[in-house]
Each structure stands twice: as C-alpha cells, then as structure tokens.
C-alpha cells in the first residue's frame, strides 16, 4: 500500500522534478553574470515595448 502511494506521488511530482533538473534558471543567471550587456538589452527592449504601447498605440 505504502509503495503504491509513493509511486503515485512520484508520478505526480515527476514533471515538476524534471523541469527543475533542466536548471534553465541557473543558465540564465550565469549568462547574465558573464555578459553585462544582457540586462541592458532586456531593459532597452522592455522600455521600447512600453513606450510604443503607451505613446504610439
């Protein structure tokens, strides 16, 4: 019985665990730390989109 409960639990948690193992958040942070232009570019893109949305559209 306990084994079945554990198996069902693992089955439910498996997709989340696999997603966590991709560590794509770690990769983004590492990339951003190594490339100082990354944050600036994203900030420019966000501002560009906001300015267009507010003042142009």
């Amino acid at each position, binding site marked *: 019985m306990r084994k079945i409960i554990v198996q069902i639990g693992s089955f439910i948690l498996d997709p989340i665990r696999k997603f966590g193992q991709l560590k794509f958040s770690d990769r*983004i*942070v590492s990339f*951003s730390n190594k490339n100082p232009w990354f*944050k600036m570019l994203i900030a420019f893109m966000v501002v560009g989109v906001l*300015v267009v949305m507010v003042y142009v559209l």
Partner: protein
Amino acid sequence: MKDWLMILLDGYIVWMIVFFLLSFFLSSKRVFRMLLFILFLYVVTWGAEQLELVISATILGYIKEWIPLIFVVILSPDIRKSFESAFVIDSKRDVATMGSAETKQHIVEAVTYLSSQNIGALITVEKHSSLDQYAERAIQMNSQVSKELLINIFTPLTPLHDGAVIIRGDTIRCAGAYYVLSETTKYDKTMGSRHRAALGISEVSDSLTIVVSEETGTISIVIEGIMLKANDKEKIYEYLNMFMK
C-alpha cells in the same frame, strides 16, 4: 519637440527602474529561482480562476495575497544588498586589464612550488566580469603579483591562507576571498570545497581559477564550469597565455 523630450525622459526613468529590477532578480540563482516560483504560482492561480476550479482557486488566492510579504521576508538580505550597491560604480567596468608576461611567470612559478610542497591554493584571475563583490568582503591587498607573495599567502597557518586570491591585471586585488560553492554533479562527489569554490566562481563569471590540491598537490585550471588538470609548467603557462590575452 517638448513631447519628444518628455517621452525620452519617461523612457530613461523606466529604463533605470527596469535595469535595477533585472539586476536584482538576476543577481543570484536563489533570487531568480524565487522569482520563477512566484511567477509559476501566479500562472497556476490565474489558470485555476479561469477554469473555475473552486477549491484550488480559493487556496491559491489566499497564498497569492501573502506572496509579497513572504518575498520580502525571505529575500530581505538580497534586497538590502541591492539597494546598497544600486548606485555604486564598479571599480572595473567592462575593460579587462590583463597581466604582463612577468605576472604570468610569477603565477606559474608560485603554483608549481605550492604543488610540489602539497600546499593548497586558490588563485582567480579576473577578466571582464568584476569580482569586486567577493573582494570587498576579503582582505584588500592591491599589491604587485610576485611568486614570493603568493607563496606566503598560501602558507598554512597564516591568516590569509584559507580563501582565494583575486588577481586583476598585474595586482593582487585581495586575499582570503570566499566564493559560493558549485552544486554541479558533473564531477566526483568527494571533490573538496576548494575545487567546488573554483567551479562556483567559474559558473558565475568569466574568470580563470587555478586550484592546487592540498591532498595530492595536483594543479587544476577551472574556467566556464570546466575543470582541467594541468600538472606541468608549460601547460599552465599556455592556459594563462590564452586567457590573459
């Protein structure tokens, strides 16, 4: 004309706010993971509300209300640090200062001597990414790189031997620096904390780190999350030459 100036000013202020927020959220893996978790929670809550899932939407709704408070409590040290360093100009900026041939020679000789004596050492050579945040918490030195000084720093039972030396150009920026240990599973689990620290700093910066093992005296070069064994002088010099161009 006045309208354009106003738009420009508006954009400038928004850019600063966005850049500050990005710097905060991308400052460490922990903070970024927390942000992703919160975003995930908001998406699930929104989904539950759209699909009219009564129980989960109600529970997640309560959790959502408490999220800002939980966020501030958990990340308060990081928030404080971000405000403290928000307008501090990095002493290094984007220009990389590379060491002279003499500096490389001193590093190679020091490392091979330490290896022959089985003395542990951790030397990081900075490139574009600034390591000021680690140097600030270590013992400031700002002295010329020399073989004798490096050997003296890592001599056991001296106050500076436990920690890393950060080299910028031809100067030893600091000694006794501590890095966040890598959590990688790529290498042997029995790997010591000195090697883990070297991997940790290589994962978050573009620096090169030389590690001398205390147990075996082996020399490793760590760069971009990769560790390479380099036990002869020529090989270390070659790596340093490639890196410190």
